[in-house]
């Protein structure tokens, strides 16, 4: 294998490959990035057996071939190279890199130890979305997934794809985020995939723009963004029947400025440890105002009131401040509707529709459980 590549492109590609290199690999080969040169393209691949990634960049190839290079080392080396063309060549079991006056000789690992990477079936159902649409969907929904590995099903994002559209949902049992969008695509399937894979794809979609292609199969999901591909294994198990959790109708509805409420919640929550349900923020809703309070006698208290319009009877209800801010942050609209039954039943956060304006949030809803005080 022998090629010449641009340093910037090579460095970007190597650092992206590193994101799916096995961290606690029981198989040493997984700590490597697999390089392959063919037809004037360098393909970089890596996997941690859950998520695998592949991308290719144009190079001037003198000799095709493959190599398995320790990932972290390759990333560090390529990042530190001066801005000049990179000449790379495999000599015996070493990768020889030259850039300007810098020379590196990196020991490679046997390529035959590298597991074959999963590839999507070209016949499988696929759908295409604009990158910003995909990004906003992931950003809105993935935050509600649980970080607790004790219940793996809740750490994933549930996707339901049909020819008419996509529904994405995630829940950690305290809150639930659901977003749907419509499309006309040849695709059908329901999957539960690790949040991490979606977050990685979103990161790429944000930086590259363009389109995201989603391929669903029974045992894996693949996301293409530009010339990059991420394939992820699915999480096994049954995702909760989230539709039956969403209340039909409400007894009280608050219309409030989204950013203002989010700021107040964050400010007031400072007096408690913002991360625990033991120090909730309390919302006192009256006809034309929302009073937000938090704190305890020992640490201190905080109190702030902002305008808001309530339909229905006054209500006092408490939430974990982080979960409430997450819900408010997930919406893009200027105003939100908060719908309530009573102080012990789940509340719903929705974007308040604005007539004549483009709907940035699609059909998004965020359900959150109050805290008993």
């Amino acid at each position, binding site marked *: 294998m022998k090629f010449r590549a641009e340093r910037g492109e090579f460095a970007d590609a190597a650092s992206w490959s590193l994101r799916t290199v096995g961290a606690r690999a*029981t198989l040493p080969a997984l700590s490597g990035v697999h390089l392959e040169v063919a037809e004037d393209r360098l393909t970089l691949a890596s996997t941690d057996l859950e998520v695998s990634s592949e991308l290719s960049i144009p190079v001037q190839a003198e000799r095709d071939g493959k190599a398995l290079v320790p990932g972290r080392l390759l990333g560090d080396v390529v990042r530190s190279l001066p801005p000049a063309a990179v000449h790379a060549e495999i000599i015996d079991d070493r990768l020889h890199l030259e850039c300007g006056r810098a020379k590196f000789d990196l020991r490679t690992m046997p390529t035959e130890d590298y597991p074959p990477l999963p590839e999507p079936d070209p016949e499988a159902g696929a759908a295409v979305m604009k990158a910003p649409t995909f990004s906003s969907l992931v950003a809105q929904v993935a935050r509600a997934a649980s970080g607790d590995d004790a219940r793996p099903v809740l750490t994933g994002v549930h996707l339901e794809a049909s020819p008419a559209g996509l529904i994405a949902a995630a*829940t950690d049992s305290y809150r639930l985020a659901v977003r749907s969008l419509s499309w006309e695509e040849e695709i059908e399937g329901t999957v539960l995939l690790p949040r991490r894979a979606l977050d990685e794809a979103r990161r790429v979609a944000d930086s590259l723009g363009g389109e995201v292609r989603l391929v669903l199969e029974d045992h894996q999901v693949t996301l293409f963004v530009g010339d990059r591909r991420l394939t992820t294994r699915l999480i096994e198990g049954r995702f*909760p029947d989230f539709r039956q959790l969403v209340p039909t109708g409400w007894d009280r509805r608050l219309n409030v400025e989204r950013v203002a409420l989010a700021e107040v919640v964050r400010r007031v929550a400072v007096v408690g440890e913002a991360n*625990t349900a*033991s120090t909730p923020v309390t919302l006192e809703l009256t006809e034309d105002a929302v009073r937000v309070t938090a704190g305890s006698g*020992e640490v201190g208290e905080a109190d702030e009131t902002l305008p808001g319009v309530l339909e229905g009877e006054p209500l006092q209800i408490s939430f974990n401040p982080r979960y409430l801010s997450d819900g408010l942050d997930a919406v893009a609209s200027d105003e939100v509707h908060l719908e309530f039954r009573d102080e012990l039943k789940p509340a719903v956060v929705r974007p308040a529709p604005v007539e004549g304006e483009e709907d940035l949030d699609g059909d998004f809803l965020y359900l959150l459980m109050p*805290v008993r005080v």
Partner: protein
Amino acid sequence: MRLVIAHCAVTYEGRLSAHLPPARRLLMVKADGCVAVHADGGAYKPLNWMNAPNTLEEHDAGWTVRNAKGEVLDIAIDEVLLDVSEDLGEDPGLSKDGVEAHLQELLAAHPEALAPAEGLRLVRREYPTDIGPVDLLCRDADGETVAVEIKRRGEIDGVEQLTRYLERLGRDPLLAPVRGILAAQRIKPQARVLAGERGIACVEVDYDALRGRASDDLTLF
């Protein structure tokens, strides 16, 4: 995973030279290529080993394992008594449970569980002193300060630690007087005696019951 029990002699050439005279030993070849030679004793270290990546060559006289650093492990085998291979599958890794941290979190949420009659309320977790943070600082129904040290196992060390905190906290006129509670899943008798002598209360807490209590949070399903 391949396990071989063989009568063998082992020679290692590398950073140093070492020789194991002929005897019966267990040879392990792991899926990642690591090779280890074990005697019938000790749980921790093999007698000789070679990490992956390496190459294992089997020949008539035994095995030769080489790595890229030029180290060579030569295993001369006279007799093979057992040779089995088994695929162990993917290893889920070692998990340690953070019981102590979780206990602290649970008791912070439910300090009343420490002493139901005293009406404890949490002032803060990890209350700082100049010799380190106290796990929980609480006040009882009468407003008296209570420092709580949380351990998985209550031993003399824990009592000593709490004693030092109590001494430090007692110097703060806003907190004094301060009494202490040592909370643990199990408390050793020696620790109880020492704690009793120093006026420190000992409370054994039921982790599982507390967890049950924690799940008292309202959830969607």
